[in-house]
């Protein structure tokens, strides 16, 4: 609540998300879309907009856009068309972007996600298909004022979907969580790499304030240059605060576009509504309308993979996992598949989950890799767990073995044999070491005898040390009890 005016404001946020589709070739020509190639090496007359060239729509790009629409619960338009969005900029080779204006491919969808234990629903206004512009690199901050600018047209013509939400988000945090969830849906659907750091997922945000309880919308600000999930939340927090201050001072807000300055942590005015572009949209005469029939849509619907929330619910249901585990294990389709493959091999879910959430994710995180990039096989994980169950190795040695499996892809049994890591469970072999440890640590032994059971752990540790970690801790504990307590 405002201290000065006593008015309590509600934050209203809508997002416009651009995602590059991960097709092999561009949306209107056959050029490669591979990331990181030599600048201007993946271009042709069409994506350079040379005079006389004409666009031809990439069927796979349409399929990916439809799949994205289906994953976001949209209606798929049986008839849609392309339009030209016109503005001058050096990285836009035709001086228009082929996009969709009044008849987008997908509309009226929704996304559900969880936040603070509560299900939230955000409506999707539309998803449409369009083309990327080239990438400008300025010698200075921006085009104006730079000594020179360079343009890489490799990116120009990569297929892009624009997803527009309704203004259903009510806090900067919710906007970030939603965006993360949306990213996951697109990733699961397999239509985009959704890497914010490589620019294959980008987000602009519209934000306004209104007195709580009001249903009217006030003048909104469009915030641009949000390059990470964190900057989405930070920029919106800053902007909400700024707008609140203006209103508290008795000021008025005007519709405008503002630029998020990540380093300074502020938004800066870019252009007012009056200065906004007139894009002069009109139907693209070089393309024919896009007609999609039911059979095509149904085929694509059937190809849709299980989406994150459904998968989480199933993991809880089918494997009896805690919600948290289910959430972590469904972070990527590859991780979830790996989990299921391990369970299929091993037979029990929770031990697999524990092992993955502990060891596997720790190692993956350290290496910055995904599970699909390491050589460890689900069967090997199951074998490892069985070696521990059978007492061939103890859990600590298991971690060591797993790390080697993770690095080399070797079988756990082979690693254990090679390195002589079998657990020593033979009481005869351990008895003399236990006796030596008791003799060397009379104080601790005395403490145990007096009934302080904590000290037994210390003695077990000493035996483990003597055996290079290979002793079966249960057997060791039994021997110690027998000798010190007579039980």
């Amino acid at each position, binding site marked *: 609540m405002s201290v000065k005016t006593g008015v309590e404001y509600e934050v209203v946020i809508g997002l416009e998300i651009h995602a590059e589709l991960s097709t092999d070739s561009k949306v209107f020509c056959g050029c490669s879309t591979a990331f990181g190639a030599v600048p201007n090496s993946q271009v042709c*007359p069409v994506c*350079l*907009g*040379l*005079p*006389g*060239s*004409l*666009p*031809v*729509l990439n069927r796979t790009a349409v399929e990916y856009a439809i799949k994205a629409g289906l994953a976001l619960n949209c209606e798929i338009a049986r008839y849609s068309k392309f339009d*030209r969005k*016109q503005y*001058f900029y*050096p990285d836009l*080779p*035709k*001086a*228009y972007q082929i996009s969709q204006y009044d008849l987008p491919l997908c509309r009226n969808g929704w996304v559900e996600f969880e936040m603070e234990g509560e299900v939230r629903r955000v409506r999707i206004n539309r998803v449409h298909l369009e083309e990327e512009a080239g990438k400008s690199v300025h010698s200075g901050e921006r*085009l*104006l*004022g730079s000594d020179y*600018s360079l*343009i890489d047209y490799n990116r120009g013509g990569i297929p892009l979907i624009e997803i527009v939400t309704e203004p259903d988000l009510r806090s900067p945090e919710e906007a970030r969580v939603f965006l993360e969830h949306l990213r996951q849906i697109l990733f699961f659907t397999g239509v985009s790499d959704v890497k914010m750091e490589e620019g294959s997922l980008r987000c602009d945000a519209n934000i306004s304030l209104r007195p709580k309880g009001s249903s009217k919308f006030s003048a909104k600000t469009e915030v641009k240059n949000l390059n990470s999930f964190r900057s989405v939340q930070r920029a919106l927090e800053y902007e909400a605060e700024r707008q609140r201050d203006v209103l508290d001072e008795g000021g008025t807000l005007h519709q405008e576009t503002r630029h998020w300055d990540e380093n300074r942590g502020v938004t800066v005015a870019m252009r007012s509504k009056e200065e906004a572009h*007139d894009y*002069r*949209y*009109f139907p693209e*005469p*070089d*393309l*024919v309308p896009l007609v999609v029939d039911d059979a095509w849509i149904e085929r694509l619907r059937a190809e849709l993979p299980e989406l994150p929330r459904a998968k989480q619910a199933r993991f809880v249901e089918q494997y009896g996992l805690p919600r948290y585990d289910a959430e972590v294990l469904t972070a990527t389709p590859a991780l979830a598949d790996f989990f299921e493959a391990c369970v299929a091999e091993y037979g029990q879910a929770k031990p697999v989950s524990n092992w993955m959430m502990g060891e596997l994710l720790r190692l993956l995180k350290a290496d910055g890799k995904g599970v699909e990039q390491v050589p460890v096989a689900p069967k090997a994980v199951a074998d490892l767990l069985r070696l521990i169950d059978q007492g061939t190795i103890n859990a600590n040695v298991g971690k060591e073995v797993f790390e080697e499996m993770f690095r080399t892809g070797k079988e756990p049994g082979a690693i254990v044999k090679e390195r002589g890591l079998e657990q020593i469970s033979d009481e005869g072999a351990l008895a003399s070491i236990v006796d030596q440890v008791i003799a060397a640590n009379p104080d601790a032994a005395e403490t145990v005898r007096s009934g302080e059971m904590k000290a037994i752990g210390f003695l077990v540790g000493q035996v483990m040390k003597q055996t290079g970690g290979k002793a079966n801790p249960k057997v060791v504990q039994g021997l110690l009890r027998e000798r010190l307590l007579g039980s």
Partner: protein
Amino acid sequence: MALHDLTAHELRQQLDSGELSSQELTKALLERIEELNGTLNAYITVTAEQALEQARAYDEARARGEATAPLGGIPVALKDNLVTRGVRTTAASRILENWVPPYDATVVERLKAAGAPSLGKTNMDEFAMGGSTETSAFGVARNPWDPGRVPGGSSGGSAIAVAAGMAVWSLGSDTGGSIRQPAAYCGIVGMKPTYGRVSRYGLIAFASSLDQIGPLTRDVTDCALALNLICGFDPRDSTSVSLEVPDFTKALVAEPKGLRVGIHKDYFDQPMDADVRAALERALKVLEDNGAVLKEVSLPSTRYAIHVYYLIAPAEASSNLARFDGVRYGLRVPGADVPRMMEETRSRGFGAEVKRRIILGTYVLSAGHYDAYYKKASQVRTLMRQEFERAFADVDVLVAPTTASTAFRLGEKTENPLEMYMTDYFTIPVNLAGLPALSMPCGVDKDGMPIGLQIIGPPFGEDKVLKAAYTYEQLAWPTGAGRHWRAGREVAVDVR
């Protein structure tokens, strides 16, 4: 008859019999270009070396028995808005003065594959915007029958080349009459095929929904041969149509009996030169006397065609020409920053007529105007298309004047754009409806200037148009509609 007056199919016989080689023919035409181009300015760029090399390659292939294309070895001229790899392509604009494309238009590929030597790139109105070839940045072109008059436009150079014997045949483009009108003014045959019949890939766009490439020839037979070569689906042009292309020479049957000819009544009600009207009426009488059935047809919405056209064409042009910004190719005039560089480049690179249309088109598409202009125009366009459709239920072809008068004098209409725009009054509806139409000579006026007869067909009814045109040609101008009327007259080169 001189070599440069022969038709492609006549030359075909000489090439096939071995009495003539493509190299001899090409050399003769290059000499003719050398002789006349200084006055007529039909070519912006002459590619003599390339033409001779292509002719040599053709002759060798023929000697091996490998060359079989009906237009193989027969030199052609290309309008300079058709993109040619390695040969500068200007669209008659300063902004592309030195642009050398890295690729060939689909039609150019087809011509090369057939072994037709390309003599060069012909003059035109800048970006095909104009009806007189006076807006070219490379100087005005002149009518070969009276150099004080315009050749028409925008495919003026392509029409002159064929009329004056500086090429056997040529390709032009027609957005509102740009093939048919100069064909009429220069006294030859010119055809705009159905929209979608010929690939536009590599045609520098003026108005994408209206542009179509077509041939200019000395008679109807050559027109059919040229269509056979250039028509057909192209996966690189989404608006090209994947319909089977018939052998158009099969339509070359002189059969007036039962031919149902619609007379475009609304056009004949329009003001036109008395000589033009008389020539058209004579042509219709020839057909009727020989058994054709004439029927008056009304197409009232065509009266709005010119208005609709001058909304849609500039709108599309303003968008198509936005890419000429000095960043990647063509002219770049330095400026203090990028926006000013773009402004300077476009200010100096485009001529007055192009700027006029860009401004018009930008206005038409601006916020708040789209519905009133572009959208409304598109709706009228649909009505017009439906009207034509109904008309073709009862007739095989429609006959109309190509233009209301013959070639006007240079400079006569340059100060009055509206008057210039009106010269396309009879040709524009065909583009708006996407129909095939041909213009062929049907006589001369009192000054000896040729008059054009326009024959319009239903969508993909090129064969019907050709049949009607061939029938009339055989009845009235049996040695070729594009030269019979001249009665031995030579090209005039004295500039008055």
